[in-house]
């Protein structure tokens, strides 16, 4: 992040122009434009978004290729979920993009310039969140569509076909549509949680570690608690990734600890909480 991020002068509010006082979101359009300019001119943004798509599809395809299941062997494969395995990796890339958006500014000192230009820090955070979401959503859409298409092709090649009693990945199937839309939203929400945590932590490396830890540690904790059902179910209901990834399931949904949409709601609550805490800390802490 050693590139100097310049904001074109003419895009800033003209000096002397009165700031529209009184409204909560005054200055938001300018902040949005500034954040958009910063993000799109930093080298790396586009390659990270491309990496999100490529890694998600590639990991999904590799998993599908490694998935074998003889007919009648009683192995219950959720073909949609298997196809969307790449989300597990894609979310890490989205998290990195979110961390870079804010920690990059802290590590170069750019944040002081940003806050000098936009003293209303909550507005800056809101603008960053909005711009991030607008970039992640289309990338996630491509990644999910690619994964499902790959799943349809590769899994059928491996004999996971309707003829053998498995559901083929198809958008004509309601739960698959839910999983597809849900995982696009999931990636966007992961970006928002990560942005919040990175704003709280500030240091780029520590923030990356913290965000990825948040993504990958709770699912394992739930696994350790195998014999302690109460605790295990608590983790599965309320940990961001455990709850959020419930959306990937298309079979045996009734046996889940948390229903798909409710799980995504839990993740949304985490995102709101992280951004709120980040907003408060931005106001009270020195930049």
């Amino acid at each position, binding site marked *: *992040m*050693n590139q100097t991020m310049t904001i074109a002068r003419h895009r800033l509010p003209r000096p002397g122009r009165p700031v529209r006082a009184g409204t909560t979101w005054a200055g938001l359009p300018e902040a949005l434009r500034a954040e958009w300019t910063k993000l799109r001119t930093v080298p790396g943004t586009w390659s990270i978004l491309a990496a999100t798509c490529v890694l998600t599809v590639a990991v999904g395809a*590799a*998993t599908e290729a*490694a*998935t*074998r*299941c003889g007919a009648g*062997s*009683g*192995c*219950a*494969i959720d073909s949609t*979920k*298997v196809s969307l*395995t790449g989300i*597990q*990796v894609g979310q*890490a*890339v989205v*998290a*990195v993009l979110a*961390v*870079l958006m804010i*920690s*990059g500014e802290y*590590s*170069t000192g750019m944040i002081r310039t940003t806050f000098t230009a936009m003293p209303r820090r909550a507005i800056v955070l809101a603008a960053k969140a909005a711009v991030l979401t607008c970039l992640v959503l289309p990338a996630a859409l491509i990644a999910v569509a690619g994964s499902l298409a790959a799943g349809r092709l590769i899994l059928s090649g491996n004999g996971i076909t309707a003829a053998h009693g498995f559901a083929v990945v198809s958008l004509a199937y309601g739960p698959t549509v839910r999983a597809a839309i849900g995982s696009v939203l999931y990636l966007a929400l992961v970006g928002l949680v990560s942005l919040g945590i990175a704003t709280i932590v500030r240091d*780029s*490396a520590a*923030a*990356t*570690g913290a965000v*990825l*830890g948040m993504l*990958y*540690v709770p*699912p*394992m904790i739930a*696994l*350790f*608690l*195998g*014999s*302690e059902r109460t605790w295990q179910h608590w983790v599965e209901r309320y940990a961001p990734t455990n709850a959020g*990834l419930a959306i990937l399931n298309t079979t045996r949904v009734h046996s889940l600890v948390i229903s798909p949409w409710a799980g995504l709601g839990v993740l949304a609550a985490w995102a709101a909480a992280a951004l709120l805490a980040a907003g408060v800390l931005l106001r009270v802490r020195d930049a």
Partner: protein
Amino acid sequence: MTATITPYRSPQQAERDGFTQLLHAEWTKFRTLRGWVIAIVIAVVLIDVVALLVPRGNNQCGSGSGAACLGHVPTGPGGEAVNDTYYLAAQPLAGDGSITVRVTSLTGEIATNEGGFISGSGSDHGVMHSLVPWAKAGIIIAGSTRPGSAYAAMMVTGSHGVRMQYDYTSDIAGLPGSVSAASPRWLRLTRSGDAITGYDSADGKHWTEVGTVHLSGLTGAVRAGMFAASPLDFTPNLPSYAESGGGASASVATGVFDHVDLRGGAPGGRWAGQQVGSANGPQPPRGIGFRRASARYTVTGSGDIGPVVAAGVNTGYDTGTLADHLLGLFIGLLIIVVIAAMFITVEYRRGLIATTLAASPRRGRLLAAKAVVIGMVTFLLGSAAVAVAVIAGSQISRDGGIYVLPVGWLTEARVIVGTGAMLAVASVLALSIGTILRRSVAAVAAVIVAIVLPYVLGVSGVLPASASEWILRVTPAAGFAIEQSVPQYQQVVGHYAPPDYFPLAPWSGFAVLCGYAAVGLGLAAYLLRRRDAGGAG
């Protein structure tokens, strides 16, 4: 007035380029960053916190709870826990001799209700007439009928053909195919001192040697005879690793023998039937025993002669291995790889790398010094934490009523030292990735995705078993295989899954991780020499 100032000369000048100085410099850089030291201590402490605090096992049974439920599990000649439950019809064999039989039939019954046969019912209610894959009947020469004694046996099995098995863990394949009256199997065991040789034949004329084994402790009088055993019916065919095994049903197997010929036995000796060992699991009461009708002998038995596996259902207990206490390892590893990657990336961010390289222009050596420092710190702290987790954790498991499979001290030491070494090699891989990528965020993300994520994907059960297995073979997460303390046995059906079992053997998995680290370190050294040290934050 002028004063002459003598320039300061370092007394170590002659050795300035020495590797020891370089090591000392890197060690100073590491230990003086308080945040790193705290983080790495937290990392290893977390390994122990998970081992000691995550609750495991609180078995309830008739005689109380926890450790009170653990009965005696026999151990075989190699010290491993074994099942040794079967029905035997035998005679003493004082010296050298042989036993030959023809097996004309192997049939079985499996209880269809989980738990066992409905006792007292002579009818076929709740019974399925079929064989479990490792149902076995044949001939055996055993040191004694005390469970866990040395033995060698030739047997026909449910679906694995003729086998020669000895001392619980060893298994050699003989003639393939199943046995029937139309295609009987002839089996022979000969004893010469402590050497036992097994033969099989399809016609009783042309014999093939299956194997010769020397059994320690097989001196003096032994018992030779016919046996039958049938392990619990258990199908570990599950969609993912994480889902634990389903229920298991009791089963019995019946072998029919004729042309029985014992040589070297006492004159006029009689075949005496006897139940060896007693299963802790569901007891099948149906028809166990030994019957003789002229020259036809029928032996019906239940149980198994083989090793106890953590993945199986062969004992009445919850079984575990040392690796059950290392579930916190990956959290510690996550923190360690982040620190290791930052060990070099912060130098780029702060521009310190320019100073470092000016002071020690031989860049390959610099990387080596960093690798040695981070590797040694991780190895020593990691091994210590793993030792506490394994030793104290096993005690807690036993107190909770979980039977931790016994292993020799060499194996226990290998698990402890090997796991410490695994953490160290992973930290060197992370350092290499940090050197290659130079930027903190990219490097931290890359090491987590490359080293920690495959383990999470492979173990957590989000993937189908075949995909999980593949991940744990080819990614750096294969290194976790070093924590296995007991081997898999193909002759025991089980739900072989992490953390007790990995698809690769301990050192093979470790070698995969070492391969990644070697390639990473080589690439890092090459790029460090070739690139300008400007770098990026």
